[in-house]
């Protein structure tokens, strides 16, 4: 009886811990980072499509967000985070970690190049998106798996 109660308490405590820290789990952190990249890309796309006026500050901030975010993104794939929390990360990431990191670095590098030579108008932003979009899908092609 005492043992059962003890185990129950321990189990509940365990549940509590995961509930409190769910947002810090690597799966959640990296999904949040990718959402940030997605939002920055969306801001660029709005300009490229002419839905928003060209604004150099927004272009600069979006490119900076992308480059900074993908720098830390590959740090959130520790062993043990292959599954869970609806992750769409492919198991191939852990088999080819170096290549995965190289793909992140490629996107980061391209975003930095664009920051150095900031696209100057709507057409420039469109061309930049073409470059970045290829980097996104080249990583998603090998390393992200849709689950629904």
């Amino acid at each position, binding site marked *: 009886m005492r043992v059962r109660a003890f185990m129950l308490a321990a189990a509940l405590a365990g549940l509590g811990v995961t509930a409190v820290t769910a947002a810090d789990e690597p799966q959640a952190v990296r999904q949040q980072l990718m959402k940030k990249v997605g939002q920055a*890309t969306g801001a660029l*796309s709005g300009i490229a499509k002419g839905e928003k006026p060209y604004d150099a500050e927004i272009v600069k901030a979006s490119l900076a967000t992308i480059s900074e975010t993908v720098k830390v993104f590959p740090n959130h794939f520790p062993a043990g985070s292959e599954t869970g929390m609806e992750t769409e990360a492919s198991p191939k990431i852990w088999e080819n970690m170096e290549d995965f990191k190289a793909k992140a670095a490629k996107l980061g590098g391209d975003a930095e190049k664009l920051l150095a030579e900031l696209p100057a108008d709507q057409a420039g932003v469109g061309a930049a998106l073409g470059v970045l*979009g290829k980097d996104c*899908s080249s990583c*998603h092609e090998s390393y*992200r*798996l849709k*689950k629904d």
Partner: protein
Amino acid sequence: MGRRRRKLLFGVLLLPAVAAGALWWLTKPNPWDAAHWQGLGEPDVANGEQVFWAGGCVSCHAAPRAPEDQRLVLAGGRTLKSPFGTFYPPNISPDETAGIGNWTLAEFGNAMTRGVGKDGEHLYPSFPYGSYSRMTAKDVNDLWGFMQTLPKSANVAPPHDLPFPYNIRLALGGWKLLFLTDEPRADVNTADAKLARGQYLVEGPGHCGECHTPRNALGGFEEGRWLAGAPNPEGEGRIPDITPGSKSIGNWSASDIVSYLETGFTPDFDTVGGSMVDVQKNMAKLPPADREAIAAYLKALPAS
């Protein structure tokens, strides 16, 4: 032995023979009559190129990990995993010995639309002729014309790696009898030229159902689940539902779908991934009206 017994025995012996004969007849390779491929005239190579991109031949027939500028060399040899074993798509470059340079239009056309090889053998439906069967003779002729313009390769792809009984081509006749058709997959209003074009592209050359429709144990499409999403044949993950009932794209507008096919971006700024990346690159090469037709067709499907 009484007469009844003899008759019975005769029947027992004869029946399987008749059945086997009928089965052989029903499942033998069935190419088109020669006339189907005659009188088509000079191919329209520019249209052939469009058919080539719609058909996505590069995804399976380019060499594995070929760099971007070598993708038109259809050397074959990549691995294609399936629940039935591993396929290695062959060399289909215009090389006369290693490729299909010495094939006739009829031989090529019968492979594309009836799954019949050069020597009259059944081809495996991992070559998506179950969709290409809907292609018009004109499009096949134009495609054949375009393929003559591609570079040759002397590569010989490895033989398929298939366990018994899937390594027996003869048995494919049974699969064809059950599943090979050129009938429409979905009921859409074909009086609308845009929908008819979308239906042709999606159900025919685009072979979207080969990935997006779930299969039964025999490898045929599940009834009533057209484009409703399927397990990923390469292993984990799922290929999404792309009908209006989809959890992910059910609320996309037709222009969201058009823009995804053109740029690879989803409306919430995710991008295309997995085996769809190649398909999207191909779709981006089609005329805008074709992408619009595909989107219109997807929106017109019944929800899953």
